């Protein structure tokens, strides 16, 4: 039996706690230039162009298989690029300069680039062999080179912000889905990314746990200046959190605009059909 959430309507994080632990400044923009991604003979992204301004919050919507998640996975370097360029700030993610020429990135370049980016997954993906504290400190200590004390302090601040300070010694298996996802958000933020990728972060949660996670993300969006890319099927949440919404279909942007317009009066039939189908489900 899954553990019950002891804090179903998790308190919205204290503003001062969030302001203290959330990194600020230097959020980069993102630009996709004629990006192509294939899986075998299936072309998921075809010469996709779009950009995200520094600190902008963009939500990607569209039917499954339209390539939204692939965009996040390319940015997190979980999928390889087939063609085109992805810029994060002033640097290309998958390419580097060598002898005045642009060549495919090596591991060192990817390692440097990943420092700017964090991702929260649909299935949380916490490490079951570590308790909550170590889930949050392992990266900062091993990757960022923080001292253990600094990492623990940062972890405590983040757990306070996500409302799970009392679960610091728990194992992931002892937490509810909502709690696990809040720990996963804290874990991603512990690495002080400047870009945060959210991949259907509430899709795997029981309906009553969705609100807590969404409230947390709203607060993070409000209190930080992170560049955020969000894939979601929760249209209300998308409306609250985003500056801009991109509607995808078959690897291309069908329509884009501010959330009020996309959800209120979409101009494309494809968007209307999609929104209707989502609202009906």
């Amino acid at each position, binding site marked *: 039996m899954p553990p019950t959430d002891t804090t179903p309507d998790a308190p919205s994080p204290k503003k001062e706690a969030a302001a203290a632990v959330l990194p600020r400044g230097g959020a980069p923009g993102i630009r996709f230039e004629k990006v192509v991604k294939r899986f075998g003979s299936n072309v998921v992204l075809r010469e996709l162009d779009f950009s995200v301004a520094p600190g902008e919050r963009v939500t990607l919507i569209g039917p499954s298989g339209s390539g939204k998640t692939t965009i996040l996975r390319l940015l997190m370097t*979980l999928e390889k690029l087939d063609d085109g360029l992805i810029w994060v700030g002033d640097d290309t993610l998958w390419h580097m300069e060598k002898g005045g020429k642009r060549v495919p990135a090596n591991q060192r370049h990817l390692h440097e680039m990943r420092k700017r980016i964090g991702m929260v997954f649909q299935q949380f993906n916490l*490490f*079951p*062999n570590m308790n909550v504290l170590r889930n949050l400190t392992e*990266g900062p200590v*091993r*990757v960022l080179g923080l001292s253990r004390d600094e990492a623990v302090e940062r972890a405590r601040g983040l757990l306070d912000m996500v409302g799970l300070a009392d679960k610091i010694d728990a194992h992931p*298996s002892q937490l509810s889905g909502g709690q696990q996802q809040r720990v996963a958000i804290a874990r991603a933020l512990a690495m002080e990314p400047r870009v945060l990728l959210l991949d259907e972060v509430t899709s795997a949660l029981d309906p009553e746990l969705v609100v807590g996670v969404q409230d947390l993300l709203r607060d993070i969006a409000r209190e930080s200046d992170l560049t955020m890319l969000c894939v979601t099927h929760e249209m209300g949440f998308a409306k609250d959190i985003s500056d801009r919404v991109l509607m995808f279909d078959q690897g291309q942007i069908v329509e884009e605009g501010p959330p009020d317009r996309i959800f209120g009066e979409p101009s494309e039939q494809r968007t209307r059909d999609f929104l209707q189908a989502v609202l009906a489900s």
Partner: protein
Amino acid sequence: MSDVLDSYQLLLKGAWVTVQLTLYGSALALVLALVFGLVGTSRLRAVRALNRVYVEFFRGTATLVLMYWFFYSLPLIGLRFTPMFAAVLALGLNVGAYGAEVVRGSVNAVPRAQYEATVALNFTPLQRMRRVLLPQAVALMLPPFGNLLIELMKGSAVVSLITISDLMFRAKQIQASTGETLWTYVAILVIYFVIAQVLQLAVRLAERRVDRMLGRAPSREASLSTIAAGAPGAEVR
């Protein structure tokens, strides 16, 4: 029967040799299993080939033949091993090949999402393996490792053929001197069984430790479901 019991010192001596063979052989097998098992999870085909060559060769050759080879054939080209060394080498290489497959299968059975989380946290390939994938794979490895450990111990019963005085050798000695065929072999049957139970207990304790590490409630006794839950391919809870 009393003749057999009078020879208990010989039996204990033999049992001690069997235990030593088991400990040294399994230590070697464990190292080989980890090295070649991890090599088998490499992204590079040439590196993976090392795993295939080792596993296929030593899994496909009889331990006894290997022992003969190390003990009787290698001296012909000037390489001389003690009987104990030859036996440990043969047992370790053979069981290590099975173990390498267990390691490779267990590491590959850790959900891919765990690997992706390590990439998202910017771990180096070594940190991914050392901190996340291997610790979780150990939970999957332990039950099959328990089987292999007992297999290795039982497989050591042929070492008397290269002049080692193990438990089986001592039994033959006692049987020949006392004529007590039935009770001699009953005695060593029991001793082999007891050694196996001790080894099994050690593996159980290790499994409990891993359960605690993974935040699972340790099961009081092994049931079919807990055994299946630890098998390679089973989902890590």
